[in-house]
């Protein structure tokens, strides 16, 4: 790819001047972030820094108060944009898993394929089983979420998001609700995904994962991006006072 054509292709995700207020409380005070295809961005910061809010703006679960959110160059804050269609390009995994409890694991994964993408049942199930196998849960296809451990549920949730073949995956503190011994399996899945070249934005407290799997570390505090850079550098040489304090607390 020449330099010229690399510039012509819009980045996977671009946040420009992103602001978000809840009533009088301003949570995001101007975020600018450009994420090219295939980059794995890990977002860290103290609670209340706005990391989750920023993530949720990317698939418009939160409506920005100002600024633009671009997916492949399309500003999804534009009311004329079909947000349901755009969301097919952005997969999200939640801290509380949010699996559909009244369906089996396989149905959780395939329902959007059948109803949103209108795929025939057989094909949807084929894709579904592949995705479940990829996260190591092929044998749990007919289990209900209540029968699965937290780690298993989260992996099903990842499979569900991946089934739609998104271009970007958003992870909102996906291991924070898990018992420690279950965290590794989920992180392994995420690492595999990163190695396969998925564009990922990961809000996390797992510093180990950030250092090993992340291409870029973003530190947020007080609604702004304070510092960012390659994880190994940022961890060993934090430039800002705030980051140093934060790292002192968590590491």
């Amino acid at each position: 790819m020449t330099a010229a054509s690399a510039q012509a292709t819009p980045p996977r995700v671009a946040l420009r001047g992103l602001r978000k207020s809840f009533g009088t409380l301003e949570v995001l005070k101007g975020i600018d972030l450009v994420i090219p295809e295939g980059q794995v961005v890990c977002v860290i910061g103290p609670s209340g820094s706005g990391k989750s809010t920023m993530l949720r703006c990317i698939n418009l679960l939160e409506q920005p108060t100002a600024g633009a959110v671009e997916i492949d160059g399309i500003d999804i804050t534009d009311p004329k944009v079909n947000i349901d269609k755009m969301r097919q390009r952005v997969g999200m995994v939640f801290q509380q898993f949010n699996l559909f409890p009244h369906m089996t694991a396989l149905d959780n994964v395939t329902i959007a394929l059948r109803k949103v993408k209108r795929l025939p049942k057989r094909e949807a199930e084929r894709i579904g089983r592949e995705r479940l196998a990829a996260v190591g849960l092929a044998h749990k296809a007919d289990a209900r979420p209540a029968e699965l451990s937290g780690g298993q549920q989260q992996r099903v949730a990842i499979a569900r998001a991946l089934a739609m073949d998104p271009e970007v995956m958003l992870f909102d503190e996906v291991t924070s609700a898990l018992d420690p011994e279950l965290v590794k399996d989920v992180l392994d899945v995420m690492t595999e995904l990163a190695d396969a070249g998925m564009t990922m934005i990961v809000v996390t407290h797992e510093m180990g994962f950030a250092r090993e799997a992340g291409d870029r570390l973003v530190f947020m505090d007080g609604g702004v991006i304070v510092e960012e850079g390659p994880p190994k550098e940022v961890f060993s040489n934090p430039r800002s006072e705030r980051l140093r304090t934060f790292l002192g607390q968590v590491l």
Partner: protein
Amino acid sequence: MGELQRLFFDPQIIWETLPTLFREGLKNTLLLAIGALVIGFAFGMVLALMGISRRWWVRLPAVVYIDIFRGLPAILTIALVGLGMPTAGFRPFGRERLFYGILALGLISTAYIAEILRAGIQSVDKGQMEAARSVGMTYMMAMRLIIIPQGLRRVLPPLTNEAIAITKDSSLVFVIGLAAGERELFRVGQNIGQQTGNFSPYVAAGLVYLLITIPLTRLVNVLDKRLREGRRVATAPGAEELPASVEVQP
């Protein structure tokens, strides 16, 4: 005490009232109740969704409707619909009196069911809607496939209670006038009571009502218990991990 037995519990009269109760009364009571519940569920669902809208001008008509039809006594609503509508020239059912009754009861149960469904829908975790939207479902799709099925399951006990209530309210339809063949259980009891100068037909009618409502009450209890205790979970043999408790607070 003997008077009590003679006037209320005369076995002969009760026995003789039962055939008419089953042949005519039960049929019409069920017609009224089931008709009302079908209407109530369909329109109640619409009103419930209107009630959770973020736009005030969508919510307002729902709120007003529910306030009115929950606030008026059922007998009044039935009279207004069955007697008032034709008087005003509005006769969608011609002279089919039972249909006016079904409409009136349907209007009433819509109000109650709307509130029940709304509570059920709102009790579903917000994360469910978020997850559904995240995979590209529209609001309506998410409602239909994810939220409503869950919400509905939770409110089966109050919905069953509403079924019982409407069955009992159907006893008020006599105020709009009924012909032979159209009479519901209470009217049959009342008629035969007047003919015999005895109250045993009322008691007989009561027995048939109980025949409908007691099984429903039992059903409510079973559903309620199931919801609270959850279905029995099958643990996979040789599972390396125990089933998780999802409600983990970070």
